């Protein structure tokens, strides 16, 4: 994007605040002030809409407590494991299905239709198989992220421009060279996209499982705050969680978004 911008015309010296920024600020200020007024008005149950001061306090307490970081590390570890297992197996299966028409026709519709089904309902089974500890959370995250990664990898494999494969062959690339220099770079966008989707659902699967049954992790902390009705803390945790999730998603997207301009 930046490159095309530079090619067409140099950006004019931007005013200090563009209308878009002003509107954004206006929206944010309106929401914050409205929230605070609602909170002070006493129209709703106490603590359903806690004051920003209370949320800010809770946020500060949260971010300065070692306990929170311990639980964050637990959850991050579970998600990382789920992404590694589900992502790698999804990629392997996806590449296999993408490369082989027969296998694709035999099995891909299973994946296609099983992909968008609720995965959390498998949690009771996962508990029986992998126990009540992190194992069952990793399993659920793995199950969640396998499908989008596999489906994207299979589609990505098929989308590779045939002529690019021919180019590699005409220069007599070895099988390893074909994989590393042709296939993988040519399908980098679908793979990154699959990982992005996979990360999102692995995160949801793992955290939901934690809220259902666990004794550590962010999901556990959220449900604990719910059970003692500590609303500011719950808001604080949701805010941090959303920031982290959106940030991680954007990061993965940024990694794969390079040089997307084409034709």
């Amino acid at each position: 994007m930046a490159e095309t911008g530079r090619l067409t015309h140099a950006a004019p010296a931007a005013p200090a605040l563009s209308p878009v920024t002003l509107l954004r600020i206006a929206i944010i200020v309106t929401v914050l002030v409205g929230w605070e007024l609602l909170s002070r008005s006493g129209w709703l149950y106490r603590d359903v809409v806690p004051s920003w001061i209370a949320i800010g306090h809770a946020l500060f307490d949260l971010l300065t407590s070692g306990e929170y970081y311990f639980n964050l590390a637990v959850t991050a570890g579970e998600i990382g494991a789920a992404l590694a297992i589900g992502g790698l197996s999804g990629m392997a299966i996806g590449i296999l299905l993408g490369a082989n028409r027969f296998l694709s026709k035999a099995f891909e519709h299973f994946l296609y239709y099983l992909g968008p089904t609720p995965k959390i309902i498998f949690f009771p089974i996962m508990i029986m198989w992998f126990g009540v500890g992190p194992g069952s959370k990793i399993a659920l995250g793995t199950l969640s992220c396998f499908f989008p990664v596999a489906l994207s990898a299979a589609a990505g494999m098929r989308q590779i421009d045939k002529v690019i494969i021919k180019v590699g062959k005409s220069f007599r690339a070895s099988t390893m060279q074909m994989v590393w220099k042709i296939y993988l770079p040519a399908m980098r966008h679908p793979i990154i996209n699959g990982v992005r989707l996979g990360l999102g659902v692995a995160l949801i699967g793992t955290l939901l499982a934690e809220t259902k049954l666990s004794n550590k992790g962010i999901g556990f902390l959220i449900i604990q705050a719910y059970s003692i009705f500590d609303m500011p803390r719950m808001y604080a945790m949701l805010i941090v969680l959303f920031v982290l999730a959106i940030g991680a998603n954007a990061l993965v997207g940024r990694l794969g978004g390079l040089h997307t301009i084409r034709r």
Partner: protein
Amino acid sequence: MSADASARRSDPILVADDIYVRFDTPEGGVVAVDHMSFDVNPGEFVSVIGPSGCGKSTLFNVIGGLLTSHQGIVSVAGETISGPHQSIGMVFQEESTFPWRTVIDNVAFPLELTGMPKQKRVDRARHFIKLVGLDGFESRYPGELSGGMRQRVSLARTLASEPKILLMDEPFAALDEQTRLLLGDKVLQIQQQLKQTTLLITHNITEAVQMSDRILVMTYRPGKMKRIVNIDLPRPRTSEIVGSEAFGRYVAQIWADLREEASRGMRDQEDHVLHHEAPAS
């Protein structure tokens, strides 16, 4: 191979002997290439011309070694090929640059595969980028270039592997007429400069006459050799030759041959549409 230098000079570098390719389709077999034989001498520019659907691209794939289900023999400098051969460099009709590599990395690709040290391959790639007139664009990505520039990147990439034979399949088909003429000039200039043996597959008569020493005219299904036309126009040539009278005569002569084949192809396609369901959109 003990013959003297002048005799070796006239030995053909590429020999296609009795090539025959047949495809099975749901409606039965189609003979794409029907017993074609020809050869190309070192430094020669030969074009294969024929109507759409005559099996030109099949021939291209056979000579390039990408299609091996053929009968007959293709040999390069006396060596029978059984797959892509290092002496043959292919330029494809479709857009074939790697979008994830910069221009220089695209051009250095074949050198990278052979394990050439980085500095050396960068220098070599730079040379060929200059040759196709893209110096200054080394670190751009293909997505930032025009179609004609991308096709020049593909050409430079193939030339960088220093093939004995440059094999091109309608490399300018996707470009507009003016770009096509100018690029034709460029190819002609490079070919004359490198004395590059070239086999060009095309359906464009002007392009073929402008560049070739010899033109092989193919028939529509089955793809047979219809005629061989020697082009006795002076070299070095440029696109200005298009205006000359001799040029016009060659074009008219080849068009007379092709016209019959092309209209046969057109009727065949009309029949196909009439007797089968509408082509998928």
